[in-house]
């Protein structure tokens, strides 16, 4: 599934200016950055409630397909600015990480 296809759902909102369309190859949920850094993989959809700018640094280093900011965690403006600069797909949702993965599972098979 592409990030653009994933976004065909009202419960998700792209907060960065444009989609940098990528294939979602897997998923990782985590809020401990060292764990994310060593376990998430290129192409993963990453679910987190962390919203500071370092999230974008990790997303860039790992080349994840998108970052889903779950449970309406408020996103710092600096994070959005950096995500736009680095072309990281930053997406917000009211859903929690389990509900996000459930959607991915059901729709992606």
């Amino acid at each position, binding site marked *: 599934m592409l990030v653009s296809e994933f976004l065909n759902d009202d419960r998700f909102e792209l907060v960065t200016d444009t989609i940098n369309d990528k294939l979602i190859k897997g998923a990782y949920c985590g809020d401990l*950055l060292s764990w994310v850094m*060593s376990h998430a993989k290129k192409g993963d959809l990453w679910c987190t409630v962390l919203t500071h700018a370092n999230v974008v*640094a990790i997303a860039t*280093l790992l080349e994840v397909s998108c970052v889903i900011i779950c449970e309406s965690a408020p996103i710092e403006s*600096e994070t959005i600015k950096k995500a736009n600069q680095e072309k990281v797909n930053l997406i917000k949702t009211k859903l929690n990480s389990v509900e996000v993965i459930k959607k991915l599972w059901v729709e992606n098979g």
Partner: protein
Amino acid sequence: MDITYDFEVYANDYQNAGNASSEIKKYLMQIGFTTKFIRKIVICAYEAEMNIVIHSLGGKLTITIDNKKIILTSTDKGPGIKDLDLALSEGYSTATEAVREMGFGAGMGLPNMKKNCKFFEIDSSSKGTIVKLSWEIKDETFS
């Protein structure tokens, strides 16, 4: 011939933290190493960079590449690690509560670095900490 790049890393600079690792990654990609090989070095660079930001008074990351090896050195200006054995244990961290709330301080920094490099050396005193990591360059490390 050795090629060396230095990247300054500032204490408590969370906005720019990760930039040095990102530059190192771009450089390694230009050389043409495999994604798998680069990933190991980038994990180490990120952890080293964050350790300088979170725990030190500032420092630098240095990457040196020759025909046979890559050496990544993290050098900071102190205050040093009080108990190295504990710092090398998974899950142990001296990070503050505020830093932990940002998702750092999992106590996996040094263990992750040790796990992802071929050779690991660490020396720490009140004047600073030096972590030296290296990897062998082989035919299979090129894509």
